[in-house]
């Protein structure tokens, strides 16, 4: 699989990252090298192997993990908001979404 500049632009969009031309070029080079290293895994025979076995490494983790909903203590609103931009506000502030 060849990693092209178009592929990098596509996954950058999916990942919500904006790259300049220099970054794009170096990512094409680095990611091509890394992905071809990952391709080594294709030699490994994984037929009849369960992909999710690691999830049950420790069964006791899930025992009793389901519990009743209980009201807990929440955080103070002012601790969660951005100190400068949202001073005195009760909400997170973002650019206008609805015209």
């Amino acid at each position, binding site marked *: 699989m060849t990693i092209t500049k178009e*592929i*990098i632009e596509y*996954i*950058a969009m*999916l*990942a*919500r*990252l*904006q*790259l300049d031309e220099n*970054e794009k070029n170096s*990512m094409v080079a*680095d*990611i091509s*090298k*890394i*992905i071809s*290293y*990952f391709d*080594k*895994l*294709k030699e*490994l025979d*994984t037929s009849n*192997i*369960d*992909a*999710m*076995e*690691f999830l049950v*490494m*420790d069964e*006791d*983790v899930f*025992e*009793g*993990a389901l*519990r009743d909903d209980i009201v807990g203590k929440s*955080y*103070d609103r002012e*601790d*969660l908001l*951005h*100190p400068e*931009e949202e001073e005195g506000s009760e909400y*997170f502030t*973002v*650019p*206008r*979404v609805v015209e």
Partner: protein
Amino acid sequence: MKLHEYTISQLHDLISKREISVPELTRYMLDRIESLDSKLECYITVTEKQAMEQAEKVQKMIDDGTLNSPLAGIPMGIKDNICTRGIPTTCASKMLSNFVPPYDAHVVKKLYDNGAVLLGKLNMDEFAMGSSTESSHFKKTKNPWDTERVPGGSSGGSAAAVAAGEAIYALGSDTGGSIRQPASFCGCVGLKPTYGLVSRFGLVAYASSFDQIGPLTKTVTDCALVLNAIAGHDPMDLTSSRRQHPDYTKALINDVKGMKIGVPREFIDDSVQKDIRDAVLNAVKVFSDLGARCEEISIPIMEYVVPTYYIIALAEASFNLARYDGVKFGYRAANPKDMLDFCMRSRSEGFGTEVKRRILLGTYVLSSGYYDAYYKKALKARTIITREFNKAFEEYDIIIGPVSPTTAYRIGEKINDPVQMYMEDIFTVPVNIAGLPAISIPCGFDSKSLPIGLQIIGKRFDETTIIRAAYTFEQNTDFHKARPSLNE
């Protein structure tokens, strides 16, 4: 001997006998940081005021008899991806440079409950993504043994601070070797506990199916003391185990007679620097002479562990880091055109190159058309790797080998070759893949007098046996006694 060279247990004695007070000890450590850290750059934030207040408070509780813990009054540092209420927790990233957590991580709360005194927050690779601490947005930590060289990573600040006596002990996090490899580069003891033993509540997530928090200390005894304090169930972390953990200081027994030790030939092949191989083989001899049964074994899957680890880790990283959208916390781009521009520019301006590279790779292996070929394939490889290690543990109590194929390298030497950097994680990543515990302890020096680490890997939740083996090795060798000179 100077105060910063003492271990936790020695300082506990001095404090108990009233030979030193907690505020005196804390002041001494803060002065040491002040004089040394401009050179080593271990700390991102030094919490001088809080540390002195905490020291006074702890001393009072010791005097009242209301606090009796081996950690009471001992000054320590915490990696900057572990949340501390009211104290910046930056992950060494521009993205979180203004983030002040509204709560303490579970482990921080546990240490405070034990009377620990926090000196500050320690440098690391940005979002724990790296093996040299060079990807920190703020500074490059130097290796105390040779300040031209890296301390390892990602918990490089933690390891360098412990080795240089800028903290008596530290906490780090280990996703693919980030405690053990810097411990080996800096000549200290570093433990990655079993997945599920220590709560990650308050640890900024990198790769959630691998991340664990653990101690970096000068000795195995100190390691057991800190592990006692931080291990245990926490309902805030769904992966936290409910089993009762033993008192790890009971494992400090100088005896390995009859212990069965496997030495994988894949861990001591030609890819390993010769003096590291020699040091590991010497360790095998030390254990054999003490009555352990050491045998060469084979773990053929080793050639696939690095790609398996990176595919899964980066996939998890790409969705864990999706939360940094500029809204709820972290860096915000100025004058956004609209919501998409706000999100994209906040992320692009806030993250450094290595983090972007890893997010892109993780997004790629999860994207439609590549998911089965990479991500699902790696999960299946994970099953095979876990089974191979579990099978080895049916016959052996512990597995030993090197931590890293090289000793500390020069700053800048490898940063431009990501594949090479990733490949050097070969001996540490299988431990995270299989959820096992492993410790790094000093076992020698290379031709340039740089420390070499021995890795001891155990069965799941069998920290007791690796601590016992590590303690026995330490009691019968002198490597842990060496300290960097720092031209003081």
